[in-house]
């Protein structure tokens, strides 16, 4: 969840809640104040009536205006001095029910007791409250929306240096030479983040560089003594006076040295791919590379009496390094030959979407997904190094080709989506 979303998720309900509660309170306070004002008006009216009676000694005329009605009714006895109340009464002129505030009080005119009633329409007050409330609420709502948008824009702006840094970190590649260019910022927290990101990536790069050169140097240094060992074995094996035991010993030595040398080469290749040392890419005609290797390896397949069927769409170009394309193609084909059975089949499909190589073979003893891991060998692979498919995987990863290994009904297939 985005920070803004999380912030809003807390912020918005609380704001709305507070607004609701305060508008209810606001309504009641406003209502109370205005009714109180109305009551004051009624009291003034009452005083005027008392004043009139004091002056003239008679009741003032009853009146029945729209917003003020005064009436008198003779009563025997009244047990209160004055009483405020609210009532709904039918307004004949308007033809609708209106709310009135009324004040009842007793008046004494020449010994006769009357109950005077002054009524004032509360409708206007109600209308006023409603109007004020509507205006206030809409202003607040407008303010809220404005605030929400402003927050969004402002936060987006404030977080821009952070997002920029994050973007660069995402694109960070240990093997690339270019440095990170982080936006300068006057926000302390982000400036610190940038500083840390730069120093950390530099350190990672340096560590990676030294590891890389160590791996390369080690591999190269191993290669030379290995070459000497192999050469000496080859030279020694030319001697005429070797007996079978000595020859067998030499043979074992040679096999071990060869295996070590191939392993070293394969690991060096993997390291090179990982280190992105095959930088140059070009439009490689995968179809012709495929055909060339199939032709070259067809005789190898024939030693196991394997039939190769191919459906290769001509001139399928792929943007990649040409050496890697060749390594990829030869590895998948050799893999399909090596793990095949005698009299088996290989089917090669290359079209716009994918390169698929299927071969007959024994049921795998391990989950097929593990075949791409280093040194994961199937049971039938004999003395293979177990690095072929991991090289394939590394190359595919390098160019973001999804690669999968499937087994069903005696058919193994490697599919590389191009």
């Amino acid at each position: 969840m985005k920070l803004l979303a999380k912030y809003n998720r807390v912020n918005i309900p609380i704001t709305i809640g507070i607004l609701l509660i305060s508008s209810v309170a606001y309504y009641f306070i406003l209502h109370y104040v205005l009714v109180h004002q109305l009551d004051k008006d009624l009291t003034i009216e009452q005083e005027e009536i008392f004043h009139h009676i004091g002056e003239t000694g008679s009741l003032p005329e009853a009146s029945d205006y729209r917003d003020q009605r005064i009436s008198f009714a003779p009563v025997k006895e009244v047990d209160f001095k004055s009483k405020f109340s609210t009532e709904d009464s039918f307004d004949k002129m308007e033809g609708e029910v209106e709310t009135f505030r009324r004040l009842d009080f007793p008046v004494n005119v020449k010994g006769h007791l009357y109950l005077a009633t002054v009524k004032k329409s509360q409708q206007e007050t109600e209308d006023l409250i409603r109007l004020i409330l509507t205006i206030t609420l809409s202003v607040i709502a407008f303010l809220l929306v404005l605030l929400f948008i402003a927050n969004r824009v402002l936060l987006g702006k404030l977080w821009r240096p952070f997002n920029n840094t994050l973007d660069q970190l995402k694109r960070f590649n240990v093997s690339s030479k270019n440095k990170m260019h982080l936006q300068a910022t006057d926000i302390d927290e982000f400036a610190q983040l940038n500083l840390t990101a730069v120093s950390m990536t530099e350190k990672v790069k340096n560590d990676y560089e030294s590891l890389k050169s160590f791996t390369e140097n080690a591999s190269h240094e191993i290669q030379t003594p290995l070459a000497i060992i192999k050469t000496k074995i080859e030279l020694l094996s030319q001697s005429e006076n070797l007996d079978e035991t000595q020859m067998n010993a030499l043979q074992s030595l040679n096999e071990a040295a060869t295996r070590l040398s191939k392993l070293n080469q394969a690991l060096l290749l993997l390291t090179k791919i990982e280190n992105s040392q095959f930088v140059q890419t070009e439009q490689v005609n995968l179809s012709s590379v495929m055909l060339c290797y199939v032709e070259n390896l067809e005789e190898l397949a024939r030693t196991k009496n394997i039939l190769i069927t191919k459906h290769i769409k001509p001139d399928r170009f792929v943007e990649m390094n040409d050496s890697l394309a060749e390594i990829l193609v030869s590895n998948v084909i050799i893999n399909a030959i090596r793990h095949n059975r005698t009299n088996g089949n290989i089917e090669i499909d290359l079209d716009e979407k994918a390169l698929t190589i299927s071969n007959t073979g024994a049921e795998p003893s391990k989950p097929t997904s593990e075949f791409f891991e280093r040194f994961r060998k199937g049971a039938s692979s004999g003395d293979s190094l177990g690095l072929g498919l991991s090289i394939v995987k590394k190359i595919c990863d390098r160019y973001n080709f999804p690669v999968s290994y499937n087994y069903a009904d005696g058919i193994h297939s490697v599919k590389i989506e191009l």
Partner: protein
Amino acid sequence: MSESISAYLSAQDYSCEIAENFAAAIHKTEYNSYDCILLDIGLPDGNGLKILEQLKEDKKADGVLIISAKNSLDDKITGLNLGADDYLPKPFHLSELNARVAAIIRRKNFEGNSLIEVDELVIDTQKKSVYVNGNPLELTKKEFELLLYFVANKKRLISKDAIAEHLWGNDANGSFDFIYTHIKNLRKKLLDAGGHDYIKSVYGMGYKFAPQ
């Protein structure tokens, strides 16, 4: 390393001279001419490619085979662009080196004449055809390469991994079963065509091509 190479090649009746360093190499190539120079790029006191440049500047016709410890494409392309005849990355088999040297010398010395004769066998390296007692012998591409490899390394023991690498390149690591099939087929074809049984298996180690 150079001694091993020299020992192997000398046994093939080549006469070999060793230059231990850059200075010696420049000196030797300046005053002599060779059928083939094996040039190690990683010399202790200079880049071997400089010697190649010098040779080409002097318009020398010596064949040059570059040997490099770095299995890097750049070296290969630079070397071949400078006019080297071939490129062999370390580590290599002496038999492979020998075959490459033989090919370079053949191209240099026998221009137009690409025939190799061994007893009743005649191999035409240009037309890629083989004749036994004058009759053409049908060989597959790999069988032809195999025969040529054997002939270049006559009387020498060639290990199975050297054969595998020569035929299939570096990719074919691991099982050598298929070598046996190839050798068996080649032997059978040679015998059927009236040739001798030249190819001998030497214990488990490899094979030897022995003319009569």
